[in-house]
């Protein structure tokens, strides 16, 4: 494989488990800045992020992260030293304080000097706004704060690449907003790859969007470019049209339709959600296709 300057470079990556093909020959080159991975549950986002985060190995295809090959143990080590990861289902040691939890992970990130390590733990905790509750036990923290603890550990050592798998999942809108602020502050100085199934997250944070479904990349580009793909395909009407590709009733009582123009409708200004739905269709509301992560054949 030729050398690459991309932060993440995937070529024809395939990953199968059991009888399901989670990734069907995905190719992607990502640079700096914030990239959003958008797709419904079961699209293969988590599998892709796990491969980038080096916790899974691809079955075939080429993978380079930060210029290194994760299939080699030195390459893997080098990537892990420069990477911060927020897994899809983060676990906690609930009886530890936020400080001690992040400290433990700092030890795993090879920070053996205690004074230096403690300074770094304090730094990342204040970067996510948890400096005042650093000594509180994790079980006493709110859901949003718990997730910020995981973001904090991802920031340890000032990594070159941050991989965040649905970091704001399960948060209420107010928590989401605060979380988005945290992430956008971080994004100013780090390269971030984050996945989500909510278009507002992408619109708010990302310079680059990748839409995935069924283990394949459907589209890639800037958020504006993605929105443009829906231009001329979004309509508003007083009545529903069963022939529309996707349609729903908006809060104002009208119907928003995507697809060919039905009679008596008006053209509407497209939004990212429309473009996303156009690409992904009914799968956007589908049940997860892939087995959940707990079915991994782990120890």
């Amino acid at each position, binding site marked *: 494989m030729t050398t690459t300057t991309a932060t993440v470079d995937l070529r024809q990556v395939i990953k199968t488990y059991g009888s399901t093909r989670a990734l069907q020959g995905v190719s992607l080159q990502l640079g700096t800045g914030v990239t959003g991975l958008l797709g419904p549950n079961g699209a293969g986002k988590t599998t892709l992020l796990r491969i980038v985060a080096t916790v899974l190995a691809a079955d075939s295809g080429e993978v380079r992260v930060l210029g290194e090959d994760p299939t080699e143990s030195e390459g893997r080590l080098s990537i892990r030293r420069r990477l911060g990861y927020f897994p899809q289902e983060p676990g906690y040691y609930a009886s530890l*304080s936020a400080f001690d939890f992040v400290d433990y992970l700092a030890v795993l990130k090879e920070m053996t000097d205690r004074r230096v390590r403690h300074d770094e733990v*304090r730094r990342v905790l204040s970067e996510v706004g948890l400096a005042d509750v*650093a*000594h*509180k036990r994790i079980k006493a923290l709110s859901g949003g704060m718990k997730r910020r603890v995981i973001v904090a550990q991802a920031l340890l050592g000032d990594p070159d690449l941050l991989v965040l798998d649905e970091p704001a999942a399960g948060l209420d809108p107010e928590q989401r907003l605060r979380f988005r602020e945290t992430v956008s502050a971080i994004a100013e100085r780090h390269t971030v790859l984050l996945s989500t199934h909510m278009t507002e997250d992408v619109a708010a944070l990302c310079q680059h969007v990748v839409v995935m479904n069924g283990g394949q990349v459907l589209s890639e580009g800037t958020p504006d470019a993605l929105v443009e793909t829906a231009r001329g395909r979004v309509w508003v009407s007083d009545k529903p049209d069963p022939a529309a590709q996707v349609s729903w009733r908006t809060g104002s009582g009208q119907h928003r339709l995507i697809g060919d123009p039905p009679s008596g409708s008006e053209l509407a200004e497209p939004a990212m959600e429309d473009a996303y739905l156009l690409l992904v269709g009914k799968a956007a509301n589908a049940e997860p296709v892939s087995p959940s992560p707990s079915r991994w054949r782990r120890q």
Partner: protein
Amino acid sequence: MGETATDEALLAAIAQGDQQSLNVLYRRHAPWLTARLTHRCNDREVVDLALQDTFVAIWRKPRSYEGSGEVAAWVWGIAVRRLIDQLRRRPAHTPVAAAEVVVVSAEEEVLVGLQHGGLISALDSLSPELVAVVQATVLDGLTTREAGRLLHIPAGTVKSRMSRARVELREALT
């Protein structure tokens, strides 16, 4: 807690487990505490140990400060008792009372006298061992027994010296 927080606020944060606040409190008080402890015992190692013991004690029981009086005075109370504990472990030591007389302006003497009700200005007229006893019991707030441990004399001697000191001070102040 930041550098501008009050001592009381720092103690409250320490009670919550915030180690940074302990560090801030330390940087604020350790300089004068070290000086004052050194004026009671000129053994550097003993003073260092007493200082360390003091802040570990503060970490363990920040709530024993009941909110009355200056935090600095409360801290000194802990520090001097930790010093005594350290001294008890050592066979012999020479405590240090205030150093030699230095010529001072009359104006300063008067101001000082006004500030502290005249007691302190009268100290110069006392002999060193009486000054040490007055310093320990009156200025440092130690009990007779604690003063005895600090000065390495029996409690009875502390009492008799205090009586003599009172007599002499009364004479000096009238």
